[in-house]
């Protein structure tokens, strides 16, 4: 493709016409001669040189100089390479950034195009609006920005990033409609190329407001998505089955190859497969060739060379095969398959698990996460003990009832509930009861949301003895309320009992699809112990979410809402429920965008008047800086040449640093001056004691005096020389400059806004220390009393992220940072200090928060006044306590400044001893 050149200020090119004049002028004016002081000047009089060459500038120097001038003139004319087509219209410009999941795949192109458009809008002095198509995390509406100028818009464009869920065009339409425009708004939609939903209402609304142009990726760059396999519809790790499928829009070129990789633990690539897609077969299955033992470790699939949520497909525990052991009869008796429990279990579990049959001993020694114990008669005590230990170590034991269990209820051993002896026959010849159906699973059951076919009837069951804790152990009941499935934890493991048999003797459950679903769900439970049985299974909590830009997993922020189990399978991710890993207890659920996404459609059949353009590979390049650089270089060349001509170059040796410095100065870009407020400068120059202004005048006054007295004490006693005392407003003042901040908590404390919280949190996170003083002795060794100040403190710190605090230990470094202190009295003396101890992070052992309640500021202030006190007795008492308070203050400041330095001093004798050896 031929690149084109255009000038933005072509007027300047007229100045090129002046070049011949300059040529003439430069030819006439010779360069200045060198001057030499010469004793024999007298002898030169009247000497006429035969040649007169250098009196005129050599033609090539002239040419060089003309070139420099021509370059500067051309630069002023602002040449651009590949000039973009001008923006339509004259009014404000609106850019729509397609930041939905598909946007990630061409995000660089979108951003580059946006920046280019912004530059054009800037040159035309037009107002800029920026719209996004998709709501950010935790918000309902997509964001809009503007009107604004180029720089702000540029910052916003650079700050935007794609999300991991689809756009909602209905909401977007409302947002667009909300924009009341007097003038026309020229819209450029930087699209990812897909119409995620019917787009025509949006187009007509945008057209109504002004012109509209779409910029879309070229066909080979259209977004792709990983979906579940076409054949089975669900992702599985089963042999010979397709693992996933890949879908692309049908407008791709013929034989379009794309690659996908299977990633295992820690992101290692297990296999890469390439498929060729054609417009007629735009979605195709992909099978991977992964060894059996590694299949369970596959954690996700990822499209190569693509980014974002669509290019990732996460797997959850449900798609992994578990090792499940089924205890078979210890004596190897040949039984008819249709009456053997193992047969039904095998048929139900085989597709989802690696099954092994064996004795209890074999199975507990093997690598099984669940052991199924069908109706077995009494077991040897060795087997029972082995099984019990296995459960206690985190195994899941699934037991089925049956005739044998009904006969030998061995005192509830390895059972979740006490059973009544003998089975309950519901449709026997001696029974009045009708066979019972299963009632819907409660939301406290892990089976919640499994559909129960209506034709399942239970004819016989074992009944649980009513007990107080029975209710919490029930996972499923019959319609009459009697338990069908019960479970309880045993140390780290769990025992689940199904109160009917694993064979169709007692019910038709084992020959229903529900049986398969129940066992499948149970097998996922077996990933680890659940710990508690009465968990609410209605919602799945977010664990990790997919980062919309990279497709990587990040911890779910608090704004992500739990995912209702009910429609999790059919739901499309949105801004409140981004794709990722959700779960409850040991259950995990991979929420993928590819599962329920409608087929990919490109934007086509655009109405008349809507422009369509493609992201281009070659972008507009402003040549001005390059031309100016070239001019500068040529200027330097000219300089050197002139020096050479006048013979100075031999004298110009590189020992002269000035010339090098000059060159360096020319080549170095100028540094940006960094402005800082005067206050900041003052705070940074010296150490200041600081306190938080509470709004209580008297209290603030007292704190100020106390800190002043402490500063004085520090100055006279230690090498810490505080410059002064500063009162801070956490909302507006920078806290960074103060190693420790004193905060006298008042019950009437002003409420603190969110900006202050941010400021304080950032201060704490970056090494700052806040010393809260409740001033009422309310901090005790065992708890924080419920005093008004304590309440105020709780209110203050509710939104702060503070590590767990504990009462100060006897040997804490606060007691020896400068003075040796055993307790820390202030005006009062019964309060204990609470702080974070055993700090392992890089805070140098300094707790971010120290809470005390002895009203030290008052004592410090008093210490300054004490010498004037009249009563001798009070004076001496006060003096001692105030002196200790001052000492504590000194220690506190030392602690905040030196951290664990003094703690480390303890080891010095040992270190010295070792060094001596």
């Amino acid at each position: 493709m031929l690149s084109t050149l255009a000038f933005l200020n072509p007027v300047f090119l007229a100045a090129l016409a002046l070049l011949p004049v300059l040529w003439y002028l430069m030819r006439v004016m010779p360069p200045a001669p060198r001057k030499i002081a010469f004793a024999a000047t007298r002898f030169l009089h009247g000497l006429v040189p035969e040649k007169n060459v250098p009196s005129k500038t050599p033609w090539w120097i002239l040419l060089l100089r003309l070139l420099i001038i021509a370059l500067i003139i051309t630069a002023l004319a602002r040449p651009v390479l590949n000039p973009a087509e001008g923006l339509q219209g004259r009014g404000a410009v609106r850019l729509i950034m397609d930041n939905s999941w598909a946007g990630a795949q061409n995000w660089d192109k979108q951003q580059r195009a946006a920046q280019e458009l912004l530059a054009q809008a800037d040159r035309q002095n037009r107002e800029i609006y920026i719209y996004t198509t998709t709501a950010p995390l935790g918000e309902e509406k997509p964001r809009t920005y503007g009107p604004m100028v180029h720089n702000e818009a540029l910052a916003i464009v650079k700050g935007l990033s794609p999300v991991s869920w689809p756009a909602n065009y209905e909401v977007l339409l409302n947002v667009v409609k909300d924009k009341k425009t007097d003038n026309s708004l020229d819209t450029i939609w930087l699209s990812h190329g897909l119409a995620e939903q019917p787009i025509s209402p949006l187009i007509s609304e945008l057209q109504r407001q002004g012109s509209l142009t779409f910029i879309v990726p070229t066909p080979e760059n259209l977004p792709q998505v990983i979906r579940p396999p076409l054949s089975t519809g669900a992702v599985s790790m089963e042999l010979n089955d397709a693992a996933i499928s890949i879908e692309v829009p049908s407008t791709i070129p013929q034989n379009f190859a794309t690659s996908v990789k299977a990633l295992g633990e820690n992101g290692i690539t297990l296999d890469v497969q390439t498929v060729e897609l054609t417009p007629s077969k735009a979605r195709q299955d992909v099978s991977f060739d992964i060894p059996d033992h590694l299949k369970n470790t596959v954690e996700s699939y990822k499209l190569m060379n693509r980014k974002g949520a669509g290019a990732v497909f996460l797997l959850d525990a449900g798609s992994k095969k578990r090792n499940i052991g089924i205890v078979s009869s210890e004596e190897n008796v040949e039984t008819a398959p249709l009456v053997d429990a193992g047969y039904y279990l095998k048929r139900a579990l085989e597709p989802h698990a690696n099954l092994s049959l064996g004795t209890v001993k074999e199975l507990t020694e093997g690598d099984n996460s669940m052991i199924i114990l069908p109706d077995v008669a009494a077991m040897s005590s060795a087997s029972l003990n082995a099984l019990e230990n296995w459960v206690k170590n985190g195994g899941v034991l699934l037991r089925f009832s049956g005739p044998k269990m009904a006969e030998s209820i061995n005192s509830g051993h390895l059972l979740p509930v006490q059973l009544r002896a003998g089975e309950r026959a519901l449709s026997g010849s001696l029974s009045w009861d009708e066979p019972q159906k299963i009632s819907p699973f409660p939301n406290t059951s892990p089976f919640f949301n499994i559909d129960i076919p209506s034709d399942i009837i239970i004819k016989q069951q074992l009944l649980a003895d009513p007990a107080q804790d029975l209710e919490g152990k029930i996972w499923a009941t019959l319609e009459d309320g009697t338990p069908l499935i019960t479970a309880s934890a045993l140390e780290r493991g769990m025992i689940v009992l199904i109160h009917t048999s694993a064979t169709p003797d007692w019910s038709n459950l084992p020959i229903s699809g529900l049986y398969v679903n129940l066992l499948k769900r149970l097998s996922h439970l077996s990933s680890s112990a659940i710990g508690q049985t009465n968990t609410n299974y209605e919602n799945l909590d977010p664990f990790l979410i997919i980062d919309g830009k990279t497709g990587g997993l990040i911890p779910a922020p608090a704004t992500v809402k739990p995912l209702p189990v009910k429609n999790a399978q059919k739901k499309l991710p949105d801004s409140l429920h981004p794709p990722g890993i959700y779960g409850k207890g040991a259950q995990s659920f991979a929420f993928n965008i590819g599962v329920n996404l409608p087929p990919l459609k490109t934007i086509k059949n655009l109405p008349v008047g809507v422009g369509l353009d493609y992201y281009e590979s070659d972008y507009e390049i402003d040549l001005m800086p390059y031309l100016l650089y070239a001019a500068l270089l040529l200027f330097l060349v000219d300089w050197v040449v002139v020096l050479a001509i006048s013979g100075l170059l031999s004298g110009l040796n590189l020992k002269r640093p000035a010339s090098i410095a000059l060159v360096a100065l020319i080549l170095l870009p100028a540094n940006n001056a960094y402005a800082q407020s005067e206050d900041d400068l003052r705070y940074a120059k010296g150490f200041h004691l600081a306190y938080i202004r509470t709004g209580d005048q008297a209290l603030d006054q007292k704190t100020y005096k106390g800190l002043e007295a402490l500063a004085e004490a520090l100055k006279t006693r230690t090498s810490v020389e505080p410059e002064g005392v500063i009162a801070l407003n956490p909302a507006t003042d920078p806290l960074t400059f103060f190693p420790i901040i004193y905060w006298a908590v008042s019950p009437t404390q002003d409420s603190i806004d969110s900006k202050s919280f941010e400021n304080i949190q950032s201060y704490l996170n970056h090494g700052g220390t806040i010393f809260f003083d409740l001033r009422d002795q309310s901090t005790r060794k065992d708890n924080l009393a419920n005093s008004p100040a304590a309440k105020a403190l709780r209110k203050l710190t509710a939104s702060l992220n503070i590590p767990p605090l504990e009462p100060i230990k006897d040997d804490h470094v606060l007691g020896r940072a400068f003075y040796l202190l055993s307790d820390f009295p202030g005006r009062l003396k019964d309060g204990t200090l609470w702080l974070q101890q055993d700090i392992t992070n890089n805070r140098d052992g300094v707790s971010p928060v120290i809470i005390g309640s002895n009203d030290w500021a008052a004592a410090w202030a008093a210490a300054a006044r004490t010498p004037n006190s009249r009563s001798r007795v009070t004076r001496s008492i006060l003096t001692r306590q105030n002196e200790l308070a001052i000492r504590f203050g000194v220690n506190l400041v030392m602690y905040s400044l030196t951290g664990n330095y003094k703690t480390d001093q303890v080891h010095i004798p040992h270190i010295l001893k070792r060094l001596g050896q």
Partner: protein
Amino acid sequence: MLSKLYSKAEGEAGTLSSIMFKARHHADHIISGGHASRKSGMGENFWQFKEYSPSDRPQDIDWRQSAKTDHVFIRQKEWQKAQKNFFWCASYNGMDYKSNRTEHSKREAASILLLSLAFAMINADEQIGLYSQRRTGRSDQSVLRIGEHILNDKHHLELPDTQGFIPPKGSILIAAGDFLSDLKDIEHRFNDLKASVHDALIIQVLDPDEIELEFSGRVQFENFDHSDSELIDHIPSVQEAYKARIKEHNEKLKALCLQNDWSYVLHRTDGDISRTLQTIKPLIELKE
């Protein structure tokens, strides 16, 4: 700024001492030649004991000789009555010229030459002094005084001043300079000098630039008091003419000296100082 001044001052002091050092070195070189024999020999011409008479200086009494006899002798040297040597060096700015090719400026080269001679003379017990002061001496101190004066002389003289100072009778003038002044001025001055000095050694010190005009490009030449300037557009084309002119000037200067029965030596600053001194050596021995 201060440190710069300081180092400059140190450099100046270094110049004098280094010149003194070099001069002494060159002087030793001269003496190891002809002068040494004078000390060991007891030639009649040279040593003479004379009976002390009241008109003689008591410090001249040779006590060892006197102790041998009943008479008191003084040790009298015939040459002592002879000339005093007065040194002069051109002091105007032009003497500071130094091209890239040379180690010393003209002033430095001239001072080394003069001081070497001075050292050689005090080693031969001759009286030396500055041309401008009547005071003479025979010690290192005298040499130092001459050196200091030459390096710090602010009189900006191109030729010896004949008005302010009249040397004692029978004095010898040893003058170093570039002698690039107008030949008529020089002749006039020499004629004046001839009346006051017994003999003279003229050492013309020139920079190779001044002899060969090795420049390139377009140069504006200017003399040191800015009274005269000449713009030369293309130096190579005038080089030969200039060389001829300088050569002619030098020859005329030499002729002028010979006409006065003086000695003339040309020293190029890029030349070897000891070689020039070897040339001078027979000239000064001539007079002893």
